[in-house]
């Protein structure tokens, strides 16, 4: 009998998490290693998007490896932020955290934070919309604009339920900053928007970037059914309506950034060197006043 060598993968997380770091790590995890060590000791700067991506990596590793060791950030601020945003909650039992996360005195920040949440059911989407409503409502000049913001967030997350087929659902987190406004992220490791749209023969020839751009148009759907294909268009229009915003959608190797400032819109479409898994959405929104 021959025993396969036990494979350990070490993933070094840089001070600022980049897309390529995650892509390479996830591809390596697919090879069913014995152990994955995620070394986040150097991590210094954590946004809601970085938080969701990092946790997605840990969850993905836990799906494939026998054990996962997570080494938390050394920097106190980064380490505290992960704890405050519930990064360590509900980790798979195969995940071992190499140092005890800090225990925090938790102030009530319901008006500023949406801690890391997993979206797997309809109820999760609706609960998330309710939480987002409580965060954004006091900061908008009018209720309709605040509602437009929440509708955008609902549209961003419901796609995960309706289309993504992501094994672990999606991860969402948000924070309201004084200077930049609302910073929100939705990350799933599902099929991705281009692959989903290409299931419709009419769009099967499209590149990732073309498919993502097409999917943002009203009425474009993988199902071909009447009345469908509104979700992503709703996300874009409501984000622009709610205030000055930057919406970034990444899926496959496509990245589309839609910025709207004082009624002027700017779209940037790029193809990344490395594709990402699933769909990552980041929204920065300065509420209209």
């Amino acid at each position, binding site marked *: 009998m021959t025993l396969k060598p036990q494979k350990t993968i070490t993933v070094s997380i840089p001070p600022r998490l980049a897309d390529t770091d995650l892509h390479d790590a996830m591809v390596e995890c697919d090879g069913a290693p014995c152990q994955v060590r995620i070394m986040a000791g150097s991590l210094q700067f954590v946004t809601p998007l970085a938080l969701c991506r990092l946790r997605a990596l840990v969850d993905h590793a836990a799906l494939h490896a026998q054990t996962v060791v997570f080494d938390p950030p050394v920097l106190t601020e980064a380490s505290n932020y992960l704890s405050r945003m519930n990064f360590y909650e509900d980790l798979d039992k195969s995940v071992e955290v190499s140092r005890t996360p800090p225990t925090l005195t938790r102030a009530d920040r319901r008006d500023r934070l949406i801690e890391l949440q997993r979206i797997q059911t309809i109820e999760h989407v609706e609960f998330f*919309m309710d939480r987002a409503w409580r965060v954004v409502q006091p900061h908008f000049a009018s209720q309709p604009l605040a509602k437009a913001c929440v509708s955008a967030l609902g549209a961003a997350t419901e796609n995960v339920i309706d289309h993504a087929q992501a094994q672990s659902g999606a991860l969402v987190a948000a924070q309201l900053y004084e200077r930049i406004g609302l910073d929100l992220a939705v990350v799933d490791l599902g099929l991705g928007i281009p692959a989903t749209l290409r299931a419709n023969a009419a769009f099967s020839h499209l590149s990732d970037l073309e498919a993502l751009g097409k999917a943002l148009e009203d009425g474009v759907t993988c199902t071909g059914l009447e009345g469908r294909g509104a979700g992503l268009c709703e996300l874009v229009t409501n984000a622009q309506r709610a205030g000055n915003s930057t919406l970034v959608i990444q899926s496959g190797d496509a990245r589309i950034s839609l910025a709207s400032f004082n009624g002027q819109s700017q779209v940037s479409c790029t193809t990344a060197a490395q594709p990402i898994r699933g769909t990552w959405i980041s929204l920065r929104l300065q509420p209209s006043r």
Partner: protein
Amino acid sequence: MRYDVATRWSVFLATRERGRRVREDIEQELRGVAPGGNLVISFAGVEGITVSFGDECIAKLIVGRAAGDFVDRGLLMEGMNEDVRETMEAVLARRKVSAIALGSSGAPEVIGETGWMSSTLAAALELHSFGAADLAGRLHISPQAANNRLKMLVASGAVARELVVPDGGGKEFSYAIVIPAYA
């Protein structure tokens, strides 16, 4: 009868799956409504809905009525805040159908695909109970045009349709307003 969405479900409503479940529950309620009666769907307390939810729930109910489902009873909406109403308008317009929203006074308003629907509803409210020829005469349009308008008016939920057999034989439809304050 009144169907309170916020009490039965949630103050935020999203996803097609939720829309399907709510629609099936409303259809169940509609089965308990007597012919000539109505069901008022109350969105009071609902803070927001997504397009996907609205399409799967309300637009499909209206499309179902256009295909002949529950056409002998009324279906109306009330209590929508500005955001819910705006989303509902968009959802219905995308499907090129209309629905009826009741204001706080109970007055009906056409939402969605409007066009000639508002004038047709106004004529139907004056006639109250009528045949296609009555509507054609009131609006000075052809019987064929009246039938086309009545199909959309019935689908909107404002009017119930009943099959009647006239004295001379054959069959035709009679129509009656089923809006609570006007029925």
